[in-house]
Structure formats: C-alpha cells, structure tokens
C-alpha cells in the first residue's frame, strides 16, 4: 500500500492543498466552533457544572483557582466556573427568544410589505422608522421599569426594538426578488401566492435572514446582559452573566475582580464569536448574489 492516507494525523505543514482554507474562512470556522461550544453548554449546562452553582460556602469566600474550584469562588463562596456554565443557558436563551421573535415577525412583515407595495409598504416602512428611532435598550429599560424586574418585559421590548433591523434589510432584498421575472412567470402560471412565498421567495431570502439573525444575536445578548446588569432583568441568585458582572462589581475595588471579569469575558467571547460568524456567513452565503 503506497497510497497516502486520506485523513489522519496532519503534521504542521501536512495539509493538502484542497484542504487549505483562507485565514478569513478559518476565523469564521473558529467563531462557529465557539458558538457551537456555548450552545452545547447552554443545553447541557447543569449536567456539566462541577458544583451546584448556587451552593454558598462561607468558609471559601474569594478562593483563588484550585483543583476543586478551577476559577475560584465569589463573595459568598459559590463556584465561579459552575456559575458561568449554568448561566450560559439563561444568558443565551433570552437573546435567542428576542432574535427568533424579531426574525420571524420581521421576515413576514418584510415579505408582506415588499409583496403588497403601495400603502401597506409605506405603512410598514414608516412604522419601522419610528421604532428604529427609539434606542432599543432604553425602550427595554423603560418597559422593565414600568412592569417590574424579570426578563419577560425586556424580551418583549427588545423583540420589538430589533424588528426594524431585520425587516429593513429583508424588505429591500424581498423587493428586489419580488420584481424578478421568475416571480411574474409564476404568477402568470397561476401559482398561489402562498406557494410563491414558501417555495421560492423565502428559500431565496433565507441566507440573508440567517446572517441578520446571527449578527443580531450578538447585539441582543449584550442588551439583555446590560438590562440584567442594571438589575432589571434576571434576579439573584440566577447565574446570568450580566447579573454576575454587576454582583462582582463591588469586589473589584477590594482587589477581587474575578466574578465580573470572567462573566464579562464570557459575554465578550460570545458576542465577538457571533459577530465574526455573522460576517463570515455573509461573505460565504451572500458573496456573489444577495
């Protein structure tokens, strides 16, 4: 047997030419892996956490990194690594809901506006311009302040605030798509509108929707964390990351920044990973035709 192995261990320069990817693609792949890892943590979080994330241990306050507590403990002796892992779900779920709601509603709204044209389009675009003029975070803080703390109100507010972001982009693409002759041909053939939407327009717009949702996720996570940081979102003792940053803030001055630092780093990594993944996907999926 003299054939080279198709796969297996590759030495430093052992990559085949076909396998070599451009640095930007590698960056996207890396970002995708980081996102995948955090999604896995969000799903399996409680199973993977080495300790109970809410177990207080007064004898072990502000412990440094050790074999039992890899990242040390916080001001009440809770294991930081366990809290970070257990908090992944709470920290990712809220922005996921925001992005899911605003993406689904926004795409439908965009298609309706682009398809109908005329006054429907003007109404949708005008309403979105008004919402767009409102800073989403301030809207969410206002709503939370009125309806009391808890994540439901901010999620609803952010879902509305994120609508224009997706709707505007998808609407202009849908408008372009809707005016292509193949849509006229389908109409002439008598294809029902629902069929043209689900079989042709939506699949053709899906890459764009996916890219927008990915980029939107990073922003939504930051906004949700900010609301929790302000004490208007998740309630203690939830290990939500924004809340952890705010909980740890008083200890920074006494030289114990770990809690805020690690939670802040987790937010930073996930937001950057989603943004890189989004721009990478945009290049891959929308590069030649939008």
């Amino acid at each position, binding site marked *: 047997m003299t054939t080279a192995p198709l796969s297996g261990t590759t030495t430093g320069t052992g990559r085949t030419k076909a396998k070599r990817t451009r640095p930007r693609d590698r960056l996207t792949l890396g970002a995708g892996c980081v996102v995948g890892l955090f999604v896995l943590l969000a799903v399996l979080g409680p199973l993977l956490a080495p300790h109970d994330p809410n177990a207080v241990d007064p004898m072990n306050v502000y412990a440094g990194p050790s074999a039992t507590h890899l990242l040390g403990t916080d001001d009440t002796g809770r294991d930081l690594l366990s809290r970070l892992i257990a908090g992944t779900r709470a920290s990712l779920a809220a922005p996921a809901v925001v992005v899911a709601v605003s993406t689904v509603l926004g795409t439908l709204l965009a298609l309706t506006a682009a398809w109908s044209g005329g006054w429907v389009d003007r109404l949708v675009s005008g309403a979105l311009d008004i919402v767009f003029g409102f800073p989403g975070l301030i809207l969410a803080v206002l709503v939370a302040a009125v309806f009391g703390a808890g994540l439901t109100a901010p999620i609803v507010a952010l879902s509305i605030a994120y609508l224009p972001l997706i709707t505007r982009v998808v609407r202009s693409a849908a408008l372009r798509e809707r005016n292509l002759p*193949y849509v006229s041909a389908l109409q002439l053939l008598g294809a029902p509108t629902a069929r043209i939407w689900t079989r042709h327009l939506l699949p053709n717009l899906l890459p764009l929707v996916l890219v927008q949702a990915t980029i939107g996720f990073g922003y939504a996570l930051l906004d949700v964390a900010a609301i929790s940081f302000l004490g208007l979102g998740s309630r203690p003792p939830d290990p939500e990351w924004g809340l952890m940053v705010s909980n740890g803030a008083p200890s920074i001055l006494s030289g114990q920044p770990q809690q805020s630092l690690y939670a802040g780093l987790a937010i930073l990594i996930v937001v950057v990973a989603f943004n890189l993944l989004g721009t990478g996907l945009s290049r891959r999926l929308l590069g030649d035709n939008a």
Partner: protein
Amino acid sequence: MLEVRSLRKEFGDFVAVDDVTFSLPEQGSLAIVGESGSGKTTTARMIAGLETPSGGTVAVAGAERGPGRPRPRARRARGRRIQMVFQDPYSSLDRHQRVGDAVAEAVALHQDLPAAGRRARVAELLDLVGLDERQARSLPKALSGGQRQRVAIARALAAQPRVLILDEAIAALDVSIQAQILALLARIRADTGTALLFITHDLGAVRHISDDVLVMRAGRVVEHGPVGSVLDAPEDPYTRRLIDSIPKPGWKPRRRGEKAA
C-alpha cells in the same frame, strides 16, 4: 384570439401607453416594435395581466380580463390562454430550483397528472425545446442564456397557452441561438396553433418572425400592417427612420455631421 381595444396606461401624469388597438388571430404572429420607452413592454404586461390598464380592454380567446387583481384560480384559467417569456434569461428562472422542477411545477399547476405522467410531460416539453434529461437536473447557473430561455419557453408551454408573448426574449442571445429559437417558435406555432406576440426593438429580425408588425412610438401606434408592406413601403416617417437605422451590408460607422458617401 387576442383582441386589444383602446388600451391605455398612465403612471401618474405620464401616459406610457395611449389608445393601442390591434387583434391577433389564432396561429397568427405579430411583432410590436419601437425604441426603449415606447410603451411596448408595458403593453405586453397589460395583455398578460401583470399590469392593470388605466383604460381599454384585453380579450383573450373571448374572455375579457376583469378589473382588479385576479385570484390564483382565475389566473390559472388565464394562464391557459396567455403566457409570457421574459427578456432576461438570467432572472426568469428561480436560481435555486432545478430547471426540470421549474417545468414540473408549471405542469402540476395546469394538468392534474399522476407523478409518472407529469414526469413524462416534463420530458416531452424539454424535448420540444431541445433540452435533455441531464440539463433538466441542472440549476439555471449551469445553463447558457439560450438554454435558460428554452427552459422559460418550455415552462410557458406547460400551460398550453393560446397566445405566447415574447418580450425581447431573444434579444439577449447570440445570433445562432436566436435562429434556433426562432425556428423552434415557428414549429410550436405550426404544431399547436399558439399565436405569437413578439416585443422587440430589432426591426431587422421582424421580417423572419412575424406576419404583421405594429410600430409604437411614445405610447402610440404609428403604423400597423403586414410585415412586407410596412418594411418595404413605410408610410410613417418614424418607421422609415427605424428601417434606415438597420445596419446593411457595406454599412460603415460615420461621425455625426459627416456627409454620406
């Protein structure tokens, strides 16, 4: 077969089409010619039902087009009477749909056939336009402009229309492909009795493709008659200018102001 009476279209204050009247008999063929902006495409879109006329009527096979936006069922019934092939072969097919599936979709909308019957009908239609099984499995991007235009023609024929509108449908193709497609259309016209309505700015090709010609300028009909008499003895000065602008053998480009030799 096709009766167009006093058709008119206004976009705001701008009158794009004004008082266009003509008829097209079964198995007939008519070319509407005119420069860009003369209103010929708007006329075609109104006839097809893609634009609502501001005035006038269009009757295809005796059925007049009702006002407002037609429902899919009415459109399907209409589709059996009239279909259209569009100018740009690159965007007249869904880029993510295999071309065989595009034709199959059109067949399914118009004929209630079992799966095997539908496949046979798709193969028959693709064969009619000179495409094979392998091309049926390709995405539009794998086909040339001429092949895509054939797919668009096959898709339009799936509805078994009585009138087929070709809106600059061959202008974007190279000359040898144009000749093939024109031959194909002539065969379809002879075999199925489908009337053809060509929309074109190319007066040179008109003689080969149609019996009658209608010249439009600024939304109005300036001349209408059999191809031979209009091209050989144009009455309107605009038609004469259009005919003079066709490059002839021995034609040389000439700067403005330079005297003809």
